[in-house]
């Protein structure tokens, strides 16, 4: 394992120290417990947005703290959900009197820890609602499973719900927008290589030199099945097909197409995937009116990508286009 780290036990703390120094104009970083808030938090009268989860997915979530997106991010240990304490502290720090929304990716650990924090916040008189992002079509959704995972769609939920809160929607309004995005967004990922969690010191799974893992999650967990290495267009088809099968978008629908890098894939390759995914969506009669290509929710240095499709309407498009000013995402300001 070769990484630019000092002690594996201090990776999150040292990352946050650098992040705090580099972005002091936009965010404030609290330590012990660890959480990141907008420099101007709490914004009075505005719904506060808190998200979080295991670290290792940077720039998610801390990179999205700022005007028009999250009010706070709570980073856990690498790939491990944070505990309730920092979630509670972050929730208190961003409550501007209009209530707080927890944006939670659907993993047992995240759900349980956010649930506990919400109970504790409630006991302190803060109204908390939660939405659970579960956009990953690689996982079967049934009452007999833990349900679909939350992956790249989370970035879109954070941006769009953040814009709704910024324009002044009340807590129920922001929840409704977030739920609309969640209902209309689907993702599917692929890994070409595994990643190595610093404290583990070895790759999270073993993948042969000519194999790739289709349906990968973002926590270094294996995906749904393995196939031999294939051309980008064929891999892209295997990401787009299940999304279209699940989302069943009507021809003529406007969509946002998001190709996300897992951290170790050159940007050029993401554009190759984007080009073919876009062709596929257009061939299905869809109108790609918004796009996002880059490393927005990663799995450390994993090579691979995910494709995300969000059905847009005028409201979601406006909220997507709304100004946002965060360390990792800036538009219109």
């Amino acid at each position: 394992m070769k990484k630019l780290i000092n002690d594996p036990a201090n990776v999150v703390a040292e990352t946050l120290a650098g992040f705090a120094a580099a972005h002091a104009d936009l965010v404030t970083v609290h330590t012990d417990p660890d959480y990141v808030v907008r420099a101007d938090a709490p914004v009075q009268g505005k719904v506060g947005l808190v998200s979080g989860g295991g670290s290792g997915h940077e720039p998610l979530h801390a990179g999205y703290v700022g005007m028009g997106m999250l009010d706070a991010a709570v980073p856990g240990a690498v790939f491990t959900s944070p505990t309730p304490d920092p979630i509670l502290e972050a929730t208190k720090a961003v409550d501007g009197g209009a209530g707080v929304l927890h944006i939670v990716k659907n993993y047992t650990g995240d759900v349980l820890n956010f649930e506990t924090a919400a109970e504790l916040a409630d006991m302190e008189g803060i109204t908390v609602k939660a939405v659970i992002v579960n956009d990953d079509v690689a996982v079967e959704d049934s009452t007999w499973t833990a349900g679909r995972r939350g992956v790249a769609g989370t970035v879109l939920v954070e941006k769009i719900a953040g814009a709704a809160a910024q324009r002044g929607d009340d807590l129920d309004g922001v929840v409704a927008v977030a739920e609309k995005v969640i209902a209309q967004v689907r993702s599917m990922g692929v890994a070409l290589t595994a990643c190595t969690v610093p404290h583990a010191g070895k790759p999270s799974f073993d993948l042969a030199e000519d194999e790739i893992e289709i349906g990968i999650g973002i926590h270094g967990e294996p995906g749904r099945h393995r196939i031999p290495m294939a051309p980008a267009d064929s891999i892209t088809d295997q990401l787009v097909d299940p999304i279209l099968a699940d989302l069943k978008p009507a021809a003529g629908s406007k969509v946002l197409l998001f190709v996300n890098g897992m951290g170790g894939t050159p940007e050029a390759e993401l554009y190759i995937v984007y080009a073919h995914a876009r062709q596929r969506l257009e061939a299905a009669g869809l109108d790609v009116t918004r796009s996002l290509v880059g490393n927005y929710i990663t799995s450390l240095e994993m090579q691979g990508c995910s494709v995300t499709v969000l059905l847009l309407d005028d409201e979601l498009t406006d909220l997507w286009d709304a100004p946002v000013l965060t360390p990792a995402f800036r538009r219109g300001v």
Partner: protein
Amino acid sequence: MSDTLSTAWALAWIRGAQAVLAENRAELNDLDRAIGDGDHGENMDRGFKAVAAKLEAGAEDVQGVLKLVASTLMSTVGGAAGPLYGTAFLRAAKATTGDVDSDGVVALIAGSLEGIVARGKATTGEKTMVDAWTPALGAAQAAVGTGAGPIAVLRAAADAAAAGAEATIPLQATKGRASYLGERSIGHKDPGATSTALILACAADAAEAL
């Protein structure tokens, strides 16, 4: 050998668990690596190290020890295991009073299991720690039925938990991170069930060593 297990037992149990989880850190990570995200050993080790550091402050009774474990795990483990074990130890504390006799051991295990199920909503056969706690409870109840003392009841529970953990191997996971693997989760031992078996074995070891 006495008929009840006291604070000294509880302290010895948790100190023993800390040492055993530290020893098995890599093995638990490997189990989790196969069907999860490879951090279960790390999580448990971090949590019990924090517990051990706080135990020095001392606790008045068995319930004090269990509550300290509960709140510390809750605030240091994270992931799925943190809230699950945290709730388990909290309910174990609530389900007992003072020193623990044979019925107390049963109540302690029953409380833990209830807590885990209340939080995690898993039932048996879903390849989770529930598959270690459930046979542990059954074995403890059966041992009490034969008139066994608390030490023997604990040993029966621990052995059943270990067997339960082994028995997760052929199961397909339908809860937790391993469920994402579908059929590929078959053939691997569940890490949470394994850590449960280790923790209960420490409880029995500590009782026998008193």
